[in-house]
């Protein structure tokens, strides 16, 4: 049984439809990520699940029960907010225990759970600090602790790492994921950072303009993007979407309807060669330590190539680009949808 | 010469306009004298302003101030006596042309310090319609305390009280009337002794209190000076004691037939006078004093006094004014205007001593304490007397 199921849910504010007929379901114990660009309706969806926002249309099932109109408290969810929403006047302990106190959980149970949770997130030493005296990562942990102490099976998180710096973000990612697995929680995690989504999710729900664009495991999204949107949104640097005609790819493709397709190739699937492949000009390089992202140009169309080691490009040089047949993704130009029927040859 | 004159306003109506009109007339007749007539708030404000201005060397030559401020002003060395200024026989005559009762407050140490200007007394307004409804004769208002109580009892009914005597604002003034009627003055003429604890004084206060608590013809507690007129006009009380200064407003707004009577008597009739006198300040040159005299004499000419009285409702301060044609006609048309004059015969000075502000407040507090029941009248007045003695000792 799914832990959470959204059935054709919409959110309408006057003239704007922020969430448009969204359906998906999330199995118990799954780490699901709601991914999408800013303004696509991720937060709104999450808030409808939490009950903080009314559902305009559709039905919400939690644990088999219809919770469409239930109050937030009745849904037995936890939530981690973007800015943590820690109570600044309460210390760490009081923050963590806030919900238990509201629900008048017996004192000894409170203490028991507190010490367990504090240990799980590594806050034992900081229980009597105020949030202002904590670092970003520590605050994040308090927010997590507050969410898990209720032992609700479902936890919602809205961009919980967006205020941390890159390094800390990485550490917290690992921590959250480990905790989720250890406790067997069902998590719905909102982010617009695809790297975060890829590294954490069991299931990614990619949204765009209030609609679900693609749903699946990270690999499915990476390896088989259903649309050009998904292809361009996932991966750094993103997939190259190439117009076959503009780039003289004609000969590798079926003759009819060349102009109806776009060809997608990931930068890491392209290799540079001196001898074989598509002629191109290298114009710039972006050194990243382990590898370099090189920008190649064919007739004004830029193609990114990821190549190991350091490459320096002082002035444009000619080269050739090569890739495997399997690395090629084909999309209908008009709809943006993936098309697996058409095949192209390699060089 | 340029003169600055402060004057207070303490009654309704566009008094400032009237004063400005009078001053304009004066300036027209005396082109060499310029007068700045400055409205200075109520009596209290006017005194503060005048004294502060004097202290700071601001030029002011004359002011209308409370008639009872005389001792205070003398002590401050602020004013000169008119006896020292008047020269001609004519002027000496002029000094004697006012009603003696009105002069009392301005005279001490055998000299005259203040010339009556905007003066009033207390009269009793009553609602003739209410009298008729209660089966009383509207033309014979109560003339004694007993009659007052009796009439009051008849007049008191749901939504209407028999009588109201205001006890905020100037309680000592109203009380001055009651004690006078009980044949007891409140202070001596040197302004250094009070008689608050005299048996007759206590009796008077007891009577006032009894009107509410015993006879039930007046609300208990204090009665607001400012809103009383409205109460009367709304028919909430059949009689009220109030300043003659209200006459014109009551006349204008009353929708019923009303009458004005002298205050009732116990041992005798009585009322204190009230209001403002002209004073001339110490710090003036001879020339300025002369000009000031001119101004004051101009403003107290019988004709102008009559006009002033008719416009404002204040008393005309001299018999001669009542002899003018206009005034005669006015009184004939509107007999209540004569009541105050007729009552002057029984009038006395109002409470005025050294340390006047303090002493007055002692009495005010005592009256209010008695009326609101926090002290008995005797207790309240004895306390007040004790403290007054302490204050006035050094002036004896």
């Amino acid at each position, binding site marked *: 049984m799914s832990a959470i199921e959204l059935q054709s849910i919409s959110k309408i504010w006057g003239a704007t439809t922020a969430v448009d007929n969204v359906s998906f379901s999330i199995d118990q114990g799954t780490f699901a990520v709601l991914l999408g660009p800013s303004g696509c309706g991720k937060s709104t969806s999450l808030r409808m699940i939490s009950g903080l926002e009314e559902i305009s249309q559709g039905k919400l099932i939690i644990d088999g029960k219809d919770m469409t109109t239930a109050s937030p*408290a009745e849904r037995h969810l936890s939530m981690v907010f973007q800015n943590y*929403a820690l109570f600044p006047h309460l210390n760490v302990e009081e923050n963590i225990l806030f919900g238990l106190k509201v629900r008048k959980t017996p004192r000894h149970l409170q203490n028991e759970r507190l010490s367990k949770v504090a240990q799980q997130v590594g806050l034992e030493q900081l229980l009597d600090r105020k949030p202002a005296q904590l670092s970003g990562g520590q605050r994040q942990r308090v927010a997590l602790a507050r969410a898990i102490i209720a032992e609700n099976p479902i936890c919602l998180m809205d961009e919980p790492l967006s205020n941390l710096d890159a390094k800390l973000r990485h550490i917290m990612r690992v921590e959250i994921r480990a905790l989720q697995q250890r406790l067997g929680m069902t998590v719905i995690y909102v982010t617009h950072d695809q790297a975060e989504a890829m590294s954490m999710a069991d299931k990614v729900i990619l949204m765009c303009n209030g609609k679900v664009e693609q749903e699946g495991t990270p690999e499915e999204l990476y390896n088989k993007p259903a649309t050009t949107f998904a292809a361009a949104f996932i991966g750094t640097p993103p997939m190259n979407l190439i117009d076959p005609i503009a780039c003289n790819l004609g000969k590798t493709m079926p003759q009819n309807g060349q102009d109806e397709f776009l060809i997608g190739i990931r930068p890491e699937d392209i290799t540079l060669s001196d001898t074989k492949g598509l002629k191109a000009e290298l114009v710039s390089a972006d050194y990243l330590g382990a590898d370099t992202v090189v920008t190649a140009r064919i007739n004004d169309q830029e193609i990114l190539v990821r190549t190991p080691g350091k490459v320096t490009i002082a002035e444009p040089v000619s080269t050739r680009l090569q890739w495997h047949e399997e690395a090629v993704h084909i999309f209908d130009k008009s709809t943006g949808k993936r098309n697996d029927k058409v095949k192209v040859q390699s060089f | 010469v340029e003169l600055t004159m402060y004057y207070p306003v303490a009654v309704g109506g566009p008094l400032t306009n009237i004063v400005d009109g009078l001053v304009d007339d004066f300036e027209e007749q005396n082109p060499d004298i310029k007068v700045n007539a400055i409205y200075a708030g109520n009596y209290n404000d006017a005194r503060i302003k005048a004294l502060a201005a004097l202290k700071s060397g601001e030029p002011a030559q004359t002011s209308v101030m409370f008639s009872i401020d005389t001792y205070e002003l003398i002590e401050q060395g602020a004013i000169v006596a008119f006896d020292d200024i008047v020269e001609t026989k004519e002027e000496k005559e002029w000094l004697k042309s006012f009603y003696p009762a009105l002069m009392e407050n301005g005279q001490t140490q055998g000299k005259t310090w203040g010339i009556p200007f905007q003066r009033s007394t207390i009269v009793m307004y009553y609602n003739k319609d209410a009298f008729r409804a209660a089966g009383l004769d509207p033309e014979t208002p109560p003339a004694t305390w007993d009659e007052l109580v009796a009439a009051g009892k008849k007049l008191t009914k749901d939504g209407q009280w028999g009588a109201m005597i205001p006890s905020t604002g100037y309680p000592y003034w109203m009380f001055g009337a009651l004690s006078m009627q009980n044949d007891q003055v409140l202070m001596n003429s040197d302004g250094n002794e009070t008689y608050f604890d005299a048996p007759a004084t206590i009796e008077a206060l007891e009577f006032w209190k009894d009107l509410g608590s015993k006879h039930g013809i007046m609300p208990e507690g204090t009665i*607001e000076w400012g809103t009383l007129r409205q109460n009367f006009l709304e028919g909430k009380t059949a009689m009220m004691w109030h300043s003659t200064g209200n006459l014109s407003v009551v006349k204008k707004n009353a929708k019923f037939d009303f009458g004005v009577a002298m205050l009732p008597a116990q041992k005798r009739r009585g009322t204190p006078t009230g209001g403002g006198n002209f004073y001339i300040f110490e710090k003036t040159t001879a020339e300025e004093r002369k000009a000031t005299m001119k101004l004051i004499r101009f403003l107290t000419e019988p004709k102008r006094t009559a006009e002033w009285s008719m416009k404002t409702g204040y008393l005309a301060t001299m018999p001669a004014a009542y002899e003018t044609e206009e005034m005669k006609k006015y009184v004939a048309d509107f007999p209540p205007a004569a009541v105050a004059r007729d009552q002057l015969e029984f009038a006395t000075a109002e409470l005025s001593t050294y340390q006047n502000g303090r002493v007055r407040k002692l009495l005010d507090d005592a009256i209010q304490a008695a009326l609101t029941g926090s002290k008995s009248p005797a207790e309240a007045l004895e306390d007040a007397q004790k403290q007054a003695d302490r204050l006035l000792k050094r002036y004896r």
Partner: protein
Amino acid sequence: MKHVSTQHQLYGWLLLLPATLFLLAFTYYPTLATLAKSFFSQGTAIRPAEFVGLENYTFMLEDDVFWRVAWNNVIYALFTIPISIALALMMAVWVNSRLKFKSLARMSFFLPTMLPMIAVANIWLFFYTPEIGLIDQVTSIFGAESQNWLGDPDTVLGCIIVITIWKEAGFFMIFYLAALQTLSPELEEAARLEGASRWYYFRRVMFPLLMPTTLFVLINAIINSFKLVDHLFILTKGGPDNASSLLLYYIYEVAFSFLDQAYASTLTVILLAILAIIAIGQFVFLDKKVHYQ
């Protein structure tokens, strides 16, 4: 390098100078002059002022009216301060919520701040007047006895307090409103998720977080409880029998009705002392007030 910082200091002082001059002339000098006067007797043309030491102060201690007035002021403060603050907070919460006509309500609450007390007091006089006044007219519909609100020592101070609360609450509301706007809505949502009621949220989260504002408002309210006496001039003149008189009004009376500036100065010194203590409290608290975040 050294001279840069001296220049910096100099600028600091120069910028402060104009304001300092004004404060010196109209606050500090008169304050000291008042203090000096309190040690002299009342001066008149006939009897010049002379140094009397603490005589004015001993007189004050024996002055029944002073004690009465001081006590009144305590009562006045004890009622106006908490009630107007509580009302202000309530108004702010309302006006900050989903209320339909909230800008109308906000304007109504703020209105008294715009009206001069001297004029408004007359309108309140009408409300309180027995028989013909609004309150009596309304209560008489329900058959209640006419009540002499301002004429009864038991009720008069209460009437004054009501006016003051009416005048103040809306002003304080603005401060609370401003503070409420800075509270993150996420906090309320987090609390709602945990099942906290509105009241629980208010008690445990909102109110503690508004503490710095409450402190600021509190100090203002204390000052005003000593300062707001305009309505007395119209309504009661402190009566009956001083039942509604307050310290500043009494000072005014002593200075300008009794013309006893020496004693007025003595009372002023007491008032200044009270206010100075509060000012120091304000300095200590406000500047070091708890900054969460």
